[in-house]
């Protein structure tokens, strides 16, 4: 299966800017479906970015994060060609992991 995670990590020499876009419904548990039944909550709880064996950014998310979430941050260091590992876990225990090359 194709990864749910799309990442662009760009090094400017001193810092690396990371943008990530993840495919996920991020159901809040407050929205009803066409039949009027509540759609149960289904959202990513934790999103982790690791570089060189250390986490450089951790997002704790609630259901108020938009569908197909987007996040952007920067960290010091990070060399072109190095790996950045991204993984998420949702409230149903599903997860996904990918590795991106810093550009």
């Amino acid at each position, binding site marked *: 299966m194709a990864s749910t995670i799309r990442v662009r990590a760009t090094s400017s020499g001193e*810092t690396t800017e990371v943008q990530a876009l993840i495919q996920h419904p991020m159901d*809040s548990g*407050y*929205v*009803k479906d066409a039949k009027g039944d509540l759609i149960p909550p289904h959202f990513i*709880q*934790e999103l*982790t970015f690791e570089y060189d064996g*250390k*986490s*450089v*950014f*951790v*997002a*704790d*998310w*609630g*259901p*108020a*994060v*938009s*569908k197909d*979430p*987007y*996040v*952007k*941050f*920067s*960290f*010091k*260091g990070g060399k072109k060609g190095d790996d950045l590992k991204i993984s998420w876990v949702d409230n149903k225990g599903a997860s996904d992991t990918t590795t991106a090359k810093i550009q």
Partner: protein
Amino acid sequence: MTIPLDGFPASRRLILKGAGAVALFGFSLGPALAAVNDKYPEDAFKQKSDADAIKSLYGKTAEVSDKVKLDAPEIAENGAVVPISVSSTLADVTSISILVSENPNALAASYRIPAGTLPSVANRLKMAKTTNVIAIVEAGGKLYSASKEVKVTVGGCGG
């Protein structure tokens, strides 16, 4: 499959071994995850009001600071996707949290900022209606905040 008399204890041992392995695996997963990151703040996300969520998350209150920069639109046409970014000029930032006051649960997102990561984050949040967005920056063990009202024309709760 035949089970001779002496086969019974062997299979029992196998089952016990299996159970032990599962228990070990289960236990080792939990603490390992917790050691890398602090735990997911389940309770803070369950709080209804912004004040309760901040208290649950940090155990203290924040002071308003102009060193916290909150970027949010004046008017969000679509409450389901409101671009919000937070940055800070404070030193030693360890976390950034974003709350939407009148959402069913105020806390929307909380970001852990390890040393070496810049105190700046951009994301997209859902907003139920026109309300205040609050940015909390934890720096040097203290809390600083900034807030801004965002007008929402179509709520993000789909109702």
